């Protein structure tokens, strides 16, 4: 196969779908996307929460009507998502602040095959895992509180 043919051969390119394929994401990229997705989700929730709470000003009936909308199984599942995403966003955010300050990045070294980035070391990967595990624990605790009503 000539060079020109190789350049025009697009069969091995996945385009937009390849970009969306999360299975080949590295941990840093997963963390990057998760931090942004959870951030946008939490902002939407926060705006909704401020609006929901404003029903207080219209009296008891308006407040109870709003509660009827939110205190359902789906409302509880949504809140469990909020608990999980907020825990992940917080813990991963703290990891990112330490990273920004240069903590836990490792020392730069000569790039040798197979070119593992020194920045994505065990400490960084552990930080992402800790964020995920704490989010799962918080979701379990939240489910217990919401569905038992205690």
């Amino acid at each position, binding site marked *: 196969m000539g060079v020109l043919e190789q350049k025009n051969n697009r069969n091995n390119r996945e385009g937009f779908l390849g970009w969306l394929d999360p299975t080949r994401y590295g941990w840093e990229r997963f963390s990057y996307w998760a931090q942004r997705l959870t951030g946008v989700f939490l902002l939407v929730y*926060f705006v909704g929460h401020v609006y929901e709470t404003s029903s207080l000003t219209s009296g008891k009936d308006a407040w109870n009507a709003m509660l009827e909308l939110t205190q359902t199984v789906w409302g509880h599942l949504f809140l469990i998502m909020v608990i999980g995403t907020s825990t992940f966003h917080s813990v991963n955010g703290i990891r990112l602040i330490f990273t920004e300050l240069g903590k836990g990045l490792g020392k730069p070294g000569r790039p040798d095959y197979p070119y593992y980035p020194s920045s994505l070391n065990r400490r960084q990967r552990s930080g992402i895992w800790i964020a995920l595990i704490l989010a799962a624990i918080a979701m379990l605790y939240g489910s217990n509180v919401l569905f038992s009503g205690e």
Partner: protein
Amino acid sequence: MSRNLILRESQIMKVHYITGVAALFVVAVHILMRLVVPYGSSLEYDHVIFNYHNIFYAVLLEVILVLVSIHGFNGLRVILLELRQSTRWENSVTAATIIAMIGLVIYGTRTIIIANGLGT
């Protein structure tokens, strides 16, 4: 003169980190105050209004409102600035997020002030 009033991105990111960490603490207090009573009764109208009458709790809610609004809308601004780069886009996104942030703070503050005065 206006140039001197504009924060550098590095300064804005410091504000972003500080508001994020501070919000973590005040939101934790907000949630803990919900958990000291059974979940169902913590949502009863009278109980919620009683909480709003506590001036310290009202101030705490206002602090949460301001911190999370700054952190959240600046985060959205950062995401949107990563999508495209041009002076017009950057200025538009910055202006829109500041207006939305101020709007949300005003709306939330209205709720806190009215609820604080309810039933008194």
